[in-house]
């Protein structure tokens, strides 16, 4: 009886399996796309391109950068020369929204994409064409990233823009997108994947990780006397705890370490952290402390950064070290994970190459706030993810309109989108994101440094260093 029952169950499962797998890779309905943190569209090319002529010597260019980021150019700055009403332009997106690593992007990812695509379509679309989204789940598994990509590239018409998340995807697809001439707007900002090959198609909204780390070193070097822990020596010794992946190792490139050494800053060997919500970093923290680290830099995000902060606090080392983190680690989801213990993150520094919700003078922030509040999303999702996703899609809307104007409806190809972005020099996403495309660059080269400050009720994202030009650590 048990065997018969099991046989029937097995047969049903087999039929279901065949039925489910007969369809192509998952296709999401239009406007169901998580926010891409990569790629900021140049919303007002004529105004922002002048700001791209920054000081190449690395001096602070806060005014120029602030002007670029603070552009309040109208969303309708790009006048469409063609009317594509009735057409559809599909944006392709692959990310891990399921599985143990789903919390990395969280629900804000999906919510923001849905909201901004609806907003774009309600405001004329892409020169009249409806923006749609095709999403593929990857679980951040490289095999699934490749599978999803192969599914996308077989589409007709060929994809123009692809959004990916995770350094694994950036690395796995870096050569493929060049062959297929598809612009990859990547959130995985690994230097090797970005600039190898040199004429690649991978773009990022934030600075590559090695630039960010070098910039943090520069900030420490210039402000050490003011921020060093009590009793700390004048020598800056930095310990990096990074995920055991290309992302975690993305900061401590030879170029970044050489830059640190040129400033007299010592960088200890990288301590690896398991990519797991219950990883233990106490050993790494203690090793760094024993080796004299007075700065701990977290090259992780989400639960990874939360683990470092919590462990440093728990070991009683918080007053002995300066804790900093990369841009993706300086996000609300880290605070959400800390929950009732949110206050322990007070004092953490973070690289911040984009605007924040408090920058309400920026049009992109205004739009994001309007979308967020009208949709009634939970406050826990008011994070970098939502903001930068909205900005990224607004940016791509205008990049594509600029491409259409330049090359015509039949010229909307990945190669032409890339050429358009490169010709702009600086591309911003409604003032929130910024992408520098001059001099062969395909990522941002400036950033703020912010610090979490607990005000008793919530965490403020206080600017401690306004936008400055980051060291160029490209190979």
């Amino acid at each position, binding site marked *: 009886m048990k065997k018969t029952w099991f046989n029937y169950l097995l047969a049903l499962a087999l039929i279901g399996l065949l039925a489910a797998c007969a369809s192509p*890779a998952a296709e999401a309905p239009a406007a169901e796309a998580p926010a891409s943190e990569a790629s900021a569209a140049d919303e007002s090319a004529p105004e922002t391109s002048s700001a791209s002529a920054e000081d190449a010597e690395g001096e602070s260019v806060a005014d120029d950068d602030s002007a670029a980021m603070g552009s309040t150019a109208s969303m309708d700055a790009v006048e469409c020369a063609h009317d594509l009403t009735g057409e559809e332009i599909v944006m392709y997106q692959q990310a891990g929204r399921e*599985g143990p690593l789903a919390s990395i992007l969280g629900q804000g990812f999906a919510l923001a994409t849905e909201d901004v695509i609806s907003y774009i379509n309600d405001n004329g679309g892409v020169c009249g064409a409806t923006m749609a989204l095709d999403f593929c789940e990857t679980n951040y598994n490289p*095999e*699934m990233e490749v599978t999803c990509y192969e599914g996308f590239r077989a589409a007709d018409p060929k994809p123009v823009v692809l959004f990916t998340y995770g350094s694994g995807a950036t690395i796995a697809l870096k050569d493929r997108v060049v062959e297929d001439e598809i612009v990859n707007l990547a959130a995985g900002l690994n230097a090797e994947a970005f600039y190898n090959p040199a004429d690649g198609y991978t773009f990022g909204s934030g600075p590559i990780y090695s630039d960010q780390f070098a910039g943090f070193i520069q900030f420490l070097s210039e402000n050490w006397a003011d921020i060093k822990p009590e009793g700390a020596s004048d020598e800056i010794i930095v310990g990096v705890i990074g995920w055991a992946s*290309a992302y975690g190792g993305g900061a401590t490139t030879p170029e970044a370490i050489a830059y640190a050494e040129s400033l007299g800053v010592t960088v200890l060997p990288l301590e690896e952290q398991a990519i797991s919500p219950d990883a233990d970093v106490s050993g790494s923290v203690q090793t760094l402390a024993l080796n004299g680290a007075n700065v701990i830099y977290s090259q992780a995000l989400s639960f990874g950064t939360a683990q470092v902060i919590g462990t440093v606090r728990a070991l009683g080392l918080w007053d002995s070290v300066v804790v900093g983190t990369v841009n993706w680690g300086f996000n609300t989801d880290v605070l959400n994970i800390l929950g009732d213990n949110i206050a322990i993150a007070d004092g953490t520094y973070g690289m911040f190459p984009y605007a924040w919700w408090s920058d309400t003078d920026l049009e992109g922030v205004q739009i994001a706030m309007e979308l967020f509040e009208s949709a009634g999303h939970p406050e826990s999702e008011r994070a970098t993810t939502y903001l930068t996703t909205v900005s990224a899609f607004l940016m791509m809307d205008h990049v594509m309109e600029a491409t259409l104007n330049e090359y015509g409806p039949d010229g909307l190809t990945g190669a032409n989108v890339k050429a358009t972005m490169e010709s702009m020099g600086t591309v911003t996403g409604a003032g929130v994101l910024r992408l520098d495309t001059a001099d062969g660059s395909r990522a941002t080269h400036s950033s703020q440094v912010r610090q979490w400050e607990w005000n008793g009720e919530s965490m403020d994202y206080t600017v401690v260093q306004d936008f400055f030009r980051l060291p160029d650590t490209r190979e």
Partner: protein
Amino acid sequence: MTIRTAGDFDRHYEQDMRILRKPQQAVLAVLAIIAILIAPRFNQSYWAPTLNQIAYTIIALQGLNILTGLAGQISLGQASFMLVGGYSSALMSTHWGLPIVLTIPLAALTTGTIGLIFGLPSLRVKGFYLAMATLAAQFIIPWATRNLWKPILGGTNGAIDVPSPEMFGIAWKEPMNFFIIAFVVLIITTILTNNITRTRLGRAFVAVRDNDLAAELLGVNLYGYKLRAFFIAAALAGVAGALKAHYQRGVGTEFGYGLQDSIFFLGMLVIGGMGTRLGPFLGAITIVLLDDVAIWMGELLAHVFPDQAAQLLTSFRPIFFGLVLILFLIFEPRGLAHRWGQFLAAWRLRPFAR
């Protein structure tokens, strides 16, 4: 259990030893091969990458089946041996310019040798303790690729580029074309592993698995055969890793090869049928396709229960696979291969089967 219809008997020893005993079976096999090569072209964007993944996964499982299923030595390091094979093939292609037809067998030899090293503890320990020893491989090898010989192995980037095969002017980087290579290699490894199970070597493995003391008393060199099993398993993992590396055009810890993959391989073997010829095939196909089913079900549940969407999306997949494994362990511990054998037997014995 092999059941033949009345009147179907072998007339000589060679016929009994053949894998394809009758002409009809050979014709069916050829037709099946043609169908497998042609059918995916109807939905290339999904089936081509999926079949490539299934092919090299089966090869890795065939190796694990030899080691764990036949010889009874548990290994938690199969994914790390794939990593060795991938790197070997990649470096030989890149630095020596060798074609894939040479790099794959050389990668197999290299990985088999590495596998021998991690098989050395089998002299002294077995069972759970041997599993811990192979677990060492799973940690040491990925660590070594990230921290040693960084200019060659990629360092903390976690990956190096691997060139696509270049032969006969065909664009092998296209998934459907690459599948031809993977399928040919799969056929070769299937013939090899099937022959292992039918030879003295395979019988010695089974003897070691079933009762190593009795096997030793009967003259089976335990240590020697255990090392052979480790070598073969690692070599096949090396073949699988080489195929995976050339297909993905990259190799390194950034492309997986972690402990989770090794555990999944064991799970696939349990579900497919440990120690059986069909086990690797059924296990790999089931789990790879179930992955897509899990994604689809997770999204469906998230739509049905929007308030718990975040938790469902995060936790559903591992729970789903755990549940599948538990159900198999409870109701069919001998795997799908055994269940298939029962179906076949019931069909042949009809209407007397019950």
